[in-house]
């Protein structure tokens, strides 16, 4: 008989391992599901506080809100303001939060809180269609001054960026020339002035309000930045320093000319920002953003919580099966019932180990005692097993009741034991006892419990539960390992002992034969 080639088998095994690990890695990177359950991710919690004085009439307070700030991702947002209605209104790329109240008087305080995840590569801000520079109208003398400044900057620059830098240099010169100081008196706000000049030069520019993030700062205000369109993307400039590009800790709160805060029905409105750097579990973060990824289909997080709990246990089973295969194929441990140990291990997960062991052993021992009486009744096998099932249920309820009376709430959890399986175990052990003696019962029962405890101690590890639940595809790796062990034709560990005496004897015989010659 020809041995079939093993290449297809090994390629399947390697394929399964790669598929499992690869999917896990992709899901880890694209959906940021953490590999460790305790992992924390830093987020910025920013609180915008709006104070105003209501004039005893209907109030509408509108606050510009960040929408997709480059370099950040919104994690959560909420508004806290008792008695106010709250809505977020989105209107061609801008977002505004609206607080409304029929009637309010006296000092009012409204809060808007949002958490942002930072440290994300800010991609270029590319508009859908190239913007058109706005028209700028100056008064007579200013128009001349503006024209001269622009001509000067234009002659020493080549691109929109360098043009912007040159303009900032001219305007920020410690000893500004005539034109610059004229312009600055007319428009003291550097950013607005810069924006206007650039637009006049035919370069689209707009102002953007950004928030510098510093840990535990209160009463921060927004900083005005200028965004310049370089023909492809919007480039951020700091109008005061001329620094190009978006600083890592700057969050663009809103853009354009729209006001930050409008209050109708109130006066003396004020806004201040405070922020702290805090950490949240990475898993929650991943869950919040898992909506629109291809890989989220694989995750079970979309299921209702109840089903999720079931899957949490289900996904642990392959690991238990792996342990059983290992213990039987490689170690050669005898267990009673092939996969009974996994079921016991699952029950241990619900009951805790010590209590589980105690109740399992006592249920089986009690069952064995009853079974010896049953054997005298000479019942048919199926009826006998059924009797045992009923008896096991009684024993378990008794134990639960006793546990409850003794104040052990955990006594109730032993109902998780697979009763039919236990009944069969009792039956098999009792026959084993009759046929092979109590020693075999101890060997096989002990073997089952040992495997169960080993499977349990792996399954209860938090990071294993985390991995198998959040990365169900890792079970493919277990599958590959199980298949690999199915190919193992070497000796079992137990056989190294089983044949030991024989090898030694034969060796001695050979030696004796050699001596006598």
């Amino acid at each position, binding site marked *: 008989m020809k041995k079939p080639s093993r290449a297809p088998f090994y390629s399947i095994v390697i394929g399964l391992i790669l598929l499992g690990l690869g999917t896990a890695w992709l899901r880890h990177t694209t959906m940021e599901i953490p590999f460790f359950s305790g992992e924390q991710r830093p987020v910025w919690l920013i609180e915008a506080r709006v104070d105003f004085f209501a004039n005893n009439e209907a109030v509408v307070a509108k606050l510009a809100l960040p929408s997709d700030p480059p370099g950040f991702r919104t994690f959560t947002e909420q508004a806290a303001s008792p008695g106010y209605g709250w809505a977020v209104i989105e209107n061609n790329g801008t977002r505004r939060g609206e607080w409304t109240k029929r009637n309010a008087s006296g000092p009012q305080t409204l809060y808007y809180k949002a958490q942002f995840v930072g440290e994300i590569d800010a991609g270029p801000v590319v508009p859908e269609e190239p913007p058109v520079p706005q028209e700028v109208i100056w008064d007579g003398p200013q128009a001349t001054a503006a024209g001269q400044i622009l001509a000067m900057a234009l002659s020493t620059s080549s691109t929109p960026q360098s043009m912007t830098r040159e303009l900032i240099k001219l305007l920020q010169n410690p000893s500004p020339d005539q034109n610059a100081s004229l312009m600055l008196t007319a428009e003291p706000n550097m950013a607005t002035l810069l924006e206007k000049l650039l637009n006049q030069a035919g370069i689209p520019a707009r102002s953007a309000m950004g928030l510098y993030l510093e840990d535990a700062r209160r009463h921060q205000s927004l900083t005005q930045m200028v965004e310049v369109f370089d023909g492809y993307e919007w480039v951020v400039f700091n109008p005061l320093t001329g620094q190009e590009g978006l600083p890592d800790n700057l969050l663009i709160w809103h853009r354009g000319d729209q006001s930050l805060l409008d209050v109708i029905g109130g006066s003396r409105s004020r806004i201040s920002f405070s922020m702290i750097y805090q950490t949240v579990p990475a898993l929650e973060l991943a869950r919040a953003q898992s909506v629109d990824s291809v890989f989220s289909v694989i995750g079970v997080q979309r299921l209702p919580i109840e089903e999720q709990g079931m899957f949490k246990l289900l996904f642990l089973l392959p690991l238990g099966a792996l342990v059983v295969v290992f213990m039987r194929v490689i170690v*050669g441990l005898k267990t009673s019932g092939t996969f009974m140990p996994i079921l016991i291990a699952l029950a241990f997960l619900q009951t805790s180990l010590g209590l589980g062991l105690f109740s399992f052993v006592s249920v089986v021992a009690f069952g064995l005692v009853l079974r010896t009486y049953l054997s005298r009744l000479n019942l048919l*096998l199926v009826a006998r097993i059924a009797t045992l099932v009923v008896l096991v249920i009684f024993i378990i309820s008794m134990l639960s009741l006793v546990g409850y009376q003794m104040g052990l709430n955990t006594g109730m959890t032993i109902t998780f034991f697979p009763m039919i399986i236990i009944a069969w175990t009792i039956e098999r052990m009792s026959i084993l006892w009759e046929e092979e003696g109590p020693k075999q019962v101890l060997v096989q029962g002990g073997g089952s419990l040992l495997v169960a405890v080993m499977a349990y101690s792996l399954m209860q590890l938090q990071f294993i539960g985390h991995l198998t639940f959040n990365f169900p595809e890792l079970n493919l790796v277990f599958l590959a390992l199980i298949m690999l062990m199915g190919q193992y*034709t070497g*000796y079992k560990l137990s056989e190294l002992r089983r*044949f030991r*005496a*024989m090898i030694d004897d034969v060796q001695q015989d050979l030696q004796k034969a050699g001596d006598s010659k």
Partner: protein
Amino acid sequence: MRWVSPWRLQRMGILGMNCRNRDFIGSYNSRHLFPLVDDKLKTKLLAEEYELATPRLFFVVREQHEIAQIEKKLAGLDGFAVKPAKGSGGKGILVIIGRREDKFIKSSGVEITIEDIRRHMSNTLAGLYSLGGKSDMVIVEDLIQFDDSFDGYSYEGVPDIRIIVFKGYPVMAMLRLATHASDGKANLHQGAVGVGLDIATGRALRAVQFSKPVVLHPDTLRPLNEIAIANWRDMLLLASRCFDMTGLGYIGTDIVLDKVRGAQLLELNARPGLSIQVANGRGLLPRLRHIESLKPRAHRTPEQRVDYAMQTFSLD
């Protein structure tokens, strides 16, 4: 507590459980042939068809209600063996060697009643002794009157000869002697004595009980190294023909020597155990690999195969 290194086992050519299951049982025994040997009734009928000697079948109990009438059926029988058709590992075999008044005497000398037999049968029917608890049948067959040459070699039970047959070649053999410790059963792990037999001659090589070498039978104190099986070649032929009968490449045949009727096939086993290697003091693997390396159909008849095996695996 000492271990032996796997490389030493390898050098000795010891066949391990995983290797047996995958490379031999898995590769040479097709699944659909298993029922032929797992069901002793089928084996028996097949053996009769192929004219292989096997203990006479008295009757079969298939249904629970038939148990009520067994007293009548057992009426004329002094000695008989009650076996589950699908039993494994010698489980559920009840050997009655005689009667005293209305009691039955087990091979161990213990007296039991007809009720005990009924319960045993009803347990068997329900699948207590069968693999996986499937419902089963009871076979009642003739008791073996074992050959005088085994006098003093077996205690309370029938000595049987286990021969491993690979692709029709007998590759290793041992004699299994029941002891008091094994309760009349011939299973090594239950305490029976295993005597390795030379394939070429049928003479004892060495003997073990509980994996330890023994020189004398523990109960009768007869020296075990004097054993030589009569009609050895016939026995090997019977074993070898089981391959043609079943088509299974790797089987263990259990053969007994009856005083009157000669070598009898008791049962076949598609998953023969590994302790035969301990009894023989040598590994199966080199012999199995040797047979594997032979050209297909190198020897067509059982006679050719047996002669080849007797030559090749001779120890002298």
